[in-house]
């Protein structure tokens, strides 16, 4: 193999598994260390810069970082990255003084943002300080998008959302709430230099099976129902409730129903339990609130008697898999099942819908009625119109919407300055030795063995009574410290200097997880098998040194490195050093171009 080019920042970025997996590339270990040091304000600001909604995300993020976390490969469970973020938000001091302060000097450019969800709000936050006049449109009466209308208050208190939405609105954003944009054409006739469409995926899927029309008074589309609950148009539900669907929306529907008077709430899902789309923790939370999840049941009919919904019938199925592992649900051959219900909530998916975008504006749509959007720049086929968040490629999550927002803001800024959209700014990176003396490092290199700490919850009796009572209490500072200590500091990189190595094997012998080998060079497949422990995780890179004196090379399998620094401590010549790598995605107007 060729020697690894550690001057390419993406190499070490990939080693920081959590940050790499975070769509917004939040510098996770950096803020976890700050939390351990009780520097909550600093930890918050690192988050705010990257993901804009630390308080919201610390409670609701889909946490793609956690399945990626190295700790999960070394022991059972990843670091509770998401809930540590909340600790920063809960304990921070005055953060506002660290944020850009309006008013800003105008650059005489105007940008319209359609939809006030996380994608648009991120664009607003990144562009307003650069002098853009931002006009934010949303049909709802408050900003936040689905964070407000969909995510229930028992998971995300309104006060937390308001605070973080207001940090942005306070940057001098012109809001046009209670304003549904009926025609993009009309909007484009106004003098906007750019339009960003962050309108989400607002259409809930319906289920057209026999009885649907007759039952309509008691059958609700999940996301519409949740929005109506959030805006207090709906305050109660029947005692017996069926929720159809197996995703996170279904979990929010069933738990909300429990709080609005549903005593017997059941989730009924077509697929087997293990294959449901909902996150494991959402399923756990539903189970904790005494909500059974009935799997392998396909809805057949709504049963209506004398104009009143009585329940639903289901066909029982079982999953069969073909040679490619593709699933097919086949009848189980058992009698149909009837389940009683006063109300039914349909949570079987959402779709995009753009009835308000005329098709003659130069914005191309594909066969699925989705706009054609460039994956790097987020521009549509109309050079002035950009898409991001769920509006771009269908429903995802808040952190993805934020990541899109940052990139779209960069593009809008480049466009307005007449520069090429592909001239993206390079990330901000830094690599600094952590050596302070013999056996002394500037980071806490000890590896603790603690297993993941659970977040305490409020008493169920109280939370089920009050839709707005937050269920999770968050870590207290002591538990937060202990959980933070589980982080392996993957950003403190093992950096190897081949010219200093005397091939004494000390690093290889000391490494607890057998990451390091010295061997003749070969191609990657062979090398992976020649190591002290074969490197079977192909998603993890091999760090290959230049040729050493004996013509051998040092190979480090990054897979299960604990970043404990023992290799560097054992090295008599300091050929190994532990160096802290800081990587931050450059935001609009902040960087120099990468080329």
């Amino acid at each position: 193999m060729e020697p690894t080019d550690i001057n390419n920042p993406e190499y070490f970025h990939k080693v920081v598994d959590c940050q790499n997996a975070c769509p917004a590339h939040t510098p996770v270990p950096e803020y976890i260390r700050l939390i351990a040091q009780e520097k909550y304000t600093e930890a918050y600001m690192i988050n705010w810069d990257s993901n804009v909604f630390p308080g919201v995300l610390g409670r609701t993020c889909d946490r793609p970082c956690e399945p990626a976390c190295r700790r999960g490969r070394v022991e059972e469970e990843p670091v509770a990255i998401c809930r540590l973020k909340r600790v920063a938000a809960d304990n921070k001091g005055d953060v506002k003084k660290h944020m850009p302060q309006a008013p800003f000097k105008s650059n005489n450019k105007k940008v319209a943002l359609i939809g006030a969800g996380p994608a648009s709000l991120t664009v607003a936050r990144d562009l307003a300080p650069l002098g853009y006049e931002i006009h934010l449109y949303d049909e709802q009466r408050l900003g936040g998008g689905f964070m407000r209308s969909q995510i229930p208050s028992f998971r995300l208190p309104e006060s937390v959302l308001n605070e973080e939405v207001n940090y942005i609105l306070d940057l001098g954003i012109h809001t046009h709430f209670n304003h549904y944009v009926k025609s993009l054409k009309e909007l484009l006739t106004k003098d906007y230099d750019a339009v960003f469409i962050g309108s989400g995926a607002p259409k809930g899927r319906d289920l057209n099976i026999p009885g649907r029309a007759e039952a309509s008074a008691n059958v609700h589309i999940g996301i519409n129902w949740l929005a109506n609950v959030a805006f207090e148009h709906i305050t109660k539900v029947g005692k017996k409730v069926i929720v159809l669907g197996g995703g996170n929306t279904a979990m929010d529907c069933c738990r909300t129903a429990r709080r609005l008077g549903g005593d017997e709430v059941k989730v009924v899902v077509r697929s087997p339990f293990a294959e449901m789309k909902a996150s494991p923790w959402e399923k756990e939370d539903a189970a904790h609130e005494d909500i059974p999840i009935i799997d392998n049941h396909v809805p057949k009919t709504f049963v209506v008697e004398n104009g009143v919904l009585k329940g639903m019938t289901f066909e029982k199925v079982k999953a069969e898999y073909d040679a490619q592992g593709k699933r097919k649900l086949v009848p189980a051959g058992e009698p149909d099942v009837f389940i009683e219900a006063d109300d039914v909530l349909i949570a079987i998916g959402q779709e995009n819908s753009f009835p308000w975008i005329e098709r003659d504006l130069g914005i191309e749509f594909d066969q699925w009625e989705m706009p054609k959007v460039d994956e790097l720049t987020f521009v549509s086929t109309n050079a002035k119109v950009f898409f991001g968040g769920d509006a771009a490629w269908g429903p995802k999550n808040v952190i993805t919407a934020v990541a899109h927002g940052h990139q779209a803001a960069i593009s809008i800024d480049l466009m307005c300055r007449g520069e090429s959209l592909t001239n993206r700014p390079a990330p901000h990176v830094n690599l600094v030795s952590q050596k302070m003396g013999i056996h002394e490092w500037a980071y806490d290199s000890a590896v603790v063995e603690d297993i993941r700490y659970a977040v305490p919850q409020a008493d169920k009796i109280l939370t089920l009574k009050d839709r707005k009572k937050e269920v999770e209490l968050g870590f207290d500072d002591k538990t937060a410290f202990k959980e933070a200590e589980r982080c392996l500091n993957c950003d403190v990189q093992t950096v190897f200097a081949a010219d200093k190595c005397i091939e004494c094997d000390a690093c290889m012998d000391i490494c607890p997880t057998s990451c390091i080998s010295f061997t003749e060079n070969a191609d990657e497949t062979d090398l992976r098998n020649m190591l002290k422990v074969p490197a079977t995780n192909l998603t993890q890179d091999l760090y290959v040194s230049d040729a050493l004196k004996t013509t051998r090379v040092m190979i480090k399998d990054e897979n299960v490195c604990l970043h404990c620094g023992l290799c560097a401590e054992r090295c008599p010549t300091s050929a190994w050093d532990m160096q802290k790598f800081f990587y931050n995605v450059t935001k609009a107007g902040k960087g120099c171009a990468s080329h």
Partner: protein
Amino acid sequence: MTYVRPKFRHPELQKNKLGYTVDYYEGALSTLCAGCGHDSISASIIQSAYEMNIEPHKLAKLSGIGCSSKTPAYFLSNSHGFNSVHGRMPSVATGANLANRDLIYFGVSGDGDSASIGMGQFVHVIRRNLNMTYIVMNNGCYGLTKGQDSATADQGSKNKSGNVNPFDSIDLASLAIELGASFVAQSFSGDKSQLVPLIKAAMNHPGFAFINVISPCVTFNNNVGSTKSYDYVREHIEATSTIDFVPQMQEINVDYGQGSKKHVTMHDGSLIELRKLSDDWDPLDRQSAMNAIMNSKSKNEILTGLLYMNQDVKDLHHTLNTTDKPLNTLTKKELCPGSEMLKGINAGLR
């Protein structure tokens, strides 16, 4: 600093036949200097014991004094251990072995510990052919006392303070062969692929097995001009052969077609497979082994690998016709055979 070695290990570590992963054979975190060759030898010992499926409680590690003699703390922490007086490990090993012949005896010593203060003990333990493995971690100096030249320092070798050694060195491997050691090998701490099979074969050898391992002292004897530095050893190393140890139970799958390959069958049917590199040497022939060492010495080469092996010797227990059971398993019946027996003995002495 990480004062404790993290407990986490690679999740894909393989288990040996006893169901242990290699970490079961580890010891405490080493306190030797970073880069000391002795640590690599410890790692090879750990690997060998793991691969040999040794039950840790069936092994006793013994040592004298020195950095080298400290290493038993850093491997096999589940085994028995005795850290004895400077140069006196052989007598402790002899006593222990006579008391309990069922354990595997693993001695670790240094060049100072064996070739200076302990020379008397060293030669006699060889002469008696005590069943044990004896490793000298040879760095040409007294590491623990800050690097004075030892008796194995080569004539002309320069130490860290620039002094050139005026004395001829003692060659421990030739000495061992000369004294009738039945297994003699030489290796380098930085060559695990050679050292591990050698240690395994040595542990399997039913008599005195000696391995002289060149092991650079990175702090006091790794300077330019030293003949025990990493660089010098790497430049002057010359292997007799590549070596593989094939334990008795393993299915033997070798290609006998290749002329350069030689198999040495051990007492229990295990095989040592040597892929010979030099032709004028036969590991079963004492004279040719001595010649090979002399030849390479005259060329300033360090000859490594299995140098000599003799399967046909009797160990100390056999020579002394001792009981075939460990003493602690003998019962009153065997120890006090009764007055009739005593009478018989007394009569025999009249």
